[in-house]
């Protein structure tokens, strides 16, 4: 059970993430890469800002990872999340999971990103030409 969890404001490095989860007893790796989209509901997005409650966010990510290891036969789990200002097409999040068999990798990876978006205390502000908004804050 090996987990690598990081939250920081530097560029995320895809190759390094994948190198870390690779292992000779793995048969497959599933990787999810979030990217900043240029529009939300038709409005042009100029940039995003991500803020994290870092110690709690790390703790929540660790909980997700522990649950994944209980539920699926996976080998390594990596979650890297970026904070600070991101431009369009930059990468806020990389999740990578290696496993002997691909089903576990796919299911665990999807579970991680779905759960991260529900429980991990990280917030995103979208900047438009005519304003800015904290995503999901209001009904």
């Amino acid at each position, binding site marked *: 059970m090996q987990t690598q969890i990081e939250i920081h404001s530097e560029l995320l490095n895809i190759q390094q993430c994948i190198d870390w989860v690779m292992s000779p007893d793995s048969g497959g790796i599933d990787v999810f890469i979030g990217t900043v989209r240029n529009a939300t509901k038709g409005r042009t997005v100029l940039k995003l800002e991500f*803020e994290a409650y870092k110690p709690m966010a790390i703790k929540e990510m660790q909980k997700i990872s522990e649950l994944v290891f209980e539920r699926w036969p996976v080998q390594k789990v990596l979650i890297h999340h970026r904070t600070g200002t991101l431009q369009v097409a930059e990468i806020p999040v990389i999740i990578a999971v290696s496993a002997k068999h691909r089903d576990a990798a796919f299911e665990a990876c999807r579970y991680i990103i779905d759960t991260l978006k529900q429980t991990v205390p990280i917030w995103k502000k979208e900047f438009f030409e005519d304003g800015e908004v904290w995503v999901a804050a209001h*009904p």
Partner: protein
Amino acid sequence: MEITILAFGIAKDIFGRAWIKVKLAEAATTADLKSHLETQYPRLKKLASYMVAVNNEYAEDDGILTVHDEVAIIPPVSGG
């Protein structure tokens, strides 16, 4: 007792700063804190939802707060 409340995301905008101090009765609960804050900052009630975290864990409404706790307001998360 006086407790420091950390704020993130839109809660920081609502409080106007990254932390505030609130005065609560001894043995006040998370629910007491929420109603205190909602009176002082009515915009909190407009949020889709918000949680209180105590010592980096989501807290139940009936959890009792102490001056030693690290308390934070967690508006709806939107990472990823």
